[in-house]
């Protein structure tokens, strides 16, 4: 994804040499100049400069597709558009499951089952296509050291006892899950950059990062000046790299997030905070005295991150042992909620209990109140 050199944009050799004298070697430098600057630098007339701009733009611009072509491509390969979560109600609402080619975020208070969900999805991705999987490898980037191989085998054995009937099959499944332990933001970013080659060589069909929030919040204390922009930069760069990988290879990417406190009326500085200052998602004009009691919790990492993910699922406690999974943000699904419990075989939806709990009343997913 490095900027394209001008030579590859089919400009003439002498023009490229002349431009390199002004330190303009990539398409990026060329397109960032104004027309008058370009005239000065290339020594050509206005009309010629416009033609050159078109030439360079043609080299950089994306290819056009009509929505119809996209639909036809999807129809030819329907199973490759979603990764089924094996939770029937959830799959139906999401039009198939976790979408391929975009980022999905799982957010919840501690202990609700994010890592369990991720482990369950890893098993599902390795299953053959006939059983609803993607028949591929999984890259699992673990920043909290919460991954447990024993739990992985337990879920596989209990959820699909007919398929995993021999040790041989269990081992081949575990062999296709590649675990990376990264403990700093820098190493996470480096790992993401190196993923492109690994995806091709290992035939990876799912990327999981558990969790983004823990490593970011460890390193960036937003009370310190300058950390806020660095944090946003890191998150934005990570998000765009992951989006590129997801789209290029048409695979799902699952990320987990933590929660933070939402104070209404925004007395950010005075309150005694659970989490760093800018994690707060603040509402405008909400009434309330700004007391701790009237605050509630919501997804961490701020607004910009909420914009970057395409689908957001929220897990929260209901009454033990039942918990709730909410579809808070999705381009295809309305806002809906399901009840589940975590058992030996992973997540199990509670059938019949408020399954038709679909509301078309949206609430702001960035400010979705989560029961801690």
């Amino acid at each position, binding site marked *: 994804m490095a900027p394209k050199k001008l030579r590859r944009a089919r400009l003439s050799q002498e023009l490229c040499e002349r431009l390199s004298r002004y330190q303009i070697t990539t398409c990026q430098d060329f*397109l960032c100049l104004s027309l008058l600057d370009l005239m000065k630098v290339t020594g050509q007339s206005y009309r010629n400069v416009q033609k050159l701009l078109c030439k360079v*733009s043609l080299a950089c611009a994306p290819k056009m597709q009509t929505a119809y072509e996209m639909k036809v491509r999807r129809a030819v390969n329907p199973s490759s558009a979603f990764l089924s979560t094996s939770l029937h109600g959830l799959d139906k609402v999401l039009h198939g499951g976790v979408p391929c*080619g975009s980022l999905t975020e799982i957010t919840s208070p501690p202990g609700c089952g994010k890592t369990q969900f991720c482990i369950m999805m890893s098993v599902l991705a390795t299953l053959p296509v006939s059983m609803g999987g993607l028949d591929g490898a999984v890259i699992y980037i673990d920043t909290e050291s919460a991954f447990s191989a024993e739990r992985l085998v337990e879920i596989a054995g209990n959820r699909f006892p007919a398929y995993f009937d021999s040790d041989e099959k269990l081992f081949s499944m575990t062999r296709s899950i590649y675990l990376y332990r990264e403990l700093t933001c820098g190493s996470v970013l480096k790992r993401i950059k190196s993923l492109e080659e690994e995806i091709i060589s290992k035939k990876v069909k799912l990327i999981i990062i558990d969790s983004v929030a823990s490593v970011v919040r460890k390193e960036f204390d937003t009370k310190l000046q300058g950390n806020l922009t660095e944090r946003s930069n890191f998150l934005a760069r990570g998000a765009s790299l992951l989006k590129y990988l997801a789209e290029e290879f048409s695979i799902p990417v699952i990320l987990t997030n933590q929660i933070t406190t939402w104070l209404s009326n925004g007395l950010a500085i005075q309150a005694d905070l659970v989490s760093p200052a800018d994690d707060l998602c603040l509402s405008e004009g909400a009434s309330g005295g700004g007391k701790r009691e009237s605050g509630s919790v919501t997804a961490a990492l701020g*607004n910009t991150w909420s914009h970057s993910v395409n689908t957001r699922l929220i897990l929260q406690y209901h009454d033990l042992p039942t918990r709730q999974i909410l579809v808070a943000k999705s381009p295809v699904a309305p806002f809906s909620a399901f009840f589940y419990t975590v058992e030996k075989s992973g997540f199990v939806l509670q059938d019949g209990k408020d399954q038709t709990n679909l509301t078309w009343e949206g609430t702001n997913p960035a400010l979705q109140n989560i029961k801690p």
Partner: protein
Amino acid sequence: MQRDVGSLPLAPALRARLVAAGFQTAQELLDTGPCGLSKEIGISKEEALEALQVVRQECHSDATQTAGAPGTSRKCTALELLEQEQAQGFIITFCSALDNILGGGVQLTKITEICGEPGVGKTQLCMQLAVDVQIPECFGGLAGEAVFIDTEGSFMVDRVVDVATACVQHCQLIAEAHQEEDHLKALETFSLESILSHIYYFRCRDYIELLAQVYLLPDFLSEHSKVRLVVIDGIAFPFRHDFEDLSLRTRLLNGLAQQLIIIANDHKAAVVLTNQMTTRIGQSQSTLVPALAAAVPAKEAAIPAGGHCPNLHAG
């Protein structure tokens, strides 16, 4: 004809030489002719001829502008403007409250900016508009096509299929209720496949691709003259990271905005941009504001939390 030599769109080096040689107006250049020019300045006859052709073209287009030819004329009375604006179509959004506030729908030849918090429905609205612009004229639409430039990757074909199917059904119900000839004829061509085939989708991964695509857009729109809507979903996203030089960012955004205004006017299209919201931390409180505010002069519709009735900020 009396145009100053320094203002002609020639190569800067050539221009400097002409001024140094003492030429002042374009008429002087034309009178001298290519051979005389090449001798005085010391350039080849071919270069002189090329320069004179540029000068002649410039003077010609100046002349047609002052003569008031309809295509290039840019001056008219306010009454004419009023009539033009009222006669223009709107792209309806199928939400009557929103249409009322916008004065009938999304206006052509104008830029509309939609900002809102994550998940509130900006992309959904854009997908809806891309379908609505294609409604045939007898049903109150514009029978146009749509260009969708996506920078965030949230365009889902399945969702557009849902929206388009619902729109076709809606039109079918109207046709059944009214039973008119042209309604039924229009419905023959207004189908799911035709709607999807007329949404031109571009996925721009970073700001360079976005800039390149906007440079190429006028040519694309000249080839596809039925396009009446250009949507850029996520104009903020590519510019919000990896930009140390904020003044460059401002300049690029302003340049983009100007190009979009020209596109909107020349091709009679509506331009819709979506913007993100960011937290502005003040002294005693923080507020949510649109990111990259004031970079683009546009009609803004801000959708606050809860998706209630939007406020309209005059641009």
